[in-house]
């Protein structure tokens, strides 16, 4: 049996169908939560924000024109809300988190190598990327978004999407090199 498409669900939601809303929520809320959590770094805040994202869908479903995938629309709303929430935070809170985020995975390469766990080092280096670089890597690899969809979500030209992804990967390679993993690229 084929699952109801997201677009059909949106049409039903536009007609006030709460069951369709539940199905859409069940289908997408974990990915949207993870996307938001990566930005706000606060689980409670991320939960609040995904409620707001889906409430917007409930209210605006009649305006969805189907020019992009529903998941792309959701991530675009989520990104806007997460960045708005970040801007509302007190500066002191942001400073503390920024300091934590700045932690350089190359600080202790010996320890990293001692673990002999290349996967763990790669993950640590991924976490050490800037917000922009980590975002694009998440959108491409985890959220499986095409060049066009990333451009729509982030609000940048398609060529910039490719270039940003290239530099994100290049930076990752540099962090890995500093952590003792030479990959032979770039």
């Amino acid at each position: 049996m084929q699952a109801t498409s997201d677009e059909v669900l949106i049409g039903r939601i536009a007609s006030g169908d709460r069951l369709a809303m539940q199905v859409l929520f069940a289908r997408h809320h974990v990915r949207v939560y993870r996307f938001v959590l990566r930005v706000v770094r606060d689980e409670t805040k991320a939960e609040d924000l995904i409620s707001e994202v889906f409430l917007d869908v409930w209210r605006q479903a009649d305006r969805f024109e189907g020019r992009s995938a529903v998941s792309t629309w959701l991530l675009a709303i989520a990104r806007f809300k997460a960045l708005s929430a970040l801007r509302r935070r007190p500066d002191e809170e942001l400073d503390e988190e920024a300091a934590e985020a700045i932690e350089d995975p190359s600080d202790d390469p010996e320890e990293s190598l001692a673990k002999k766990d290349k996967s763990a080092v790669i993950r640590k280096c991924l976490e050490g990327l800037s917000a922009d670089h980590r975002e694009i890597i998440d959108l491409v690899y985890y959220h499986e978004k095409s060049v066009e969809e990333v451009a729509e979500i982030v609000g940048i030209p398609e060529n910039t999407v490719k270039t940003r992804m290239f530099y994100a990967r290049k930076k990752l390679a540099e962090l890995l090199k500093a952590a003792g993993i030479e990959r032979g690229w770039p």
Partner: protein
Amino acid sequence: MTTLNKEAPERQDLEALLPWHAAGTLARRDSERVERALSGDRDLALQYDLVREELNETIHLNEMLGAPSSRAMEKLFAAIEAEGAKAPVRRSFDLGGRISEFLSGFAPRTQSRSWRRLPCSRPL
């Protein structure tokens, strides 16, 4: 300056597309182009292995983030409930409604307004 600038444009383009090829989100034509290049370019194939490694770890990292509690869903549906009977506007493409809306622009009152603006409608 960068690898992007040092190589031929076609090679650069293929290299840039590798992440999307690994994620399976390339258009068929581009995907076939990348596949052909991978079969004849050992360096590109090695880089593709790195891309797949990054992809796997990115997925792993995201899955480690866990899932939201039921609070998120409860909050959402409480908010929807609070909006009460105010159901969202029916979105379906209502051709009849749109035609009716369009035609309403030609209602007698509107027409008479327009006519009043025409020079010929002025009293002679």
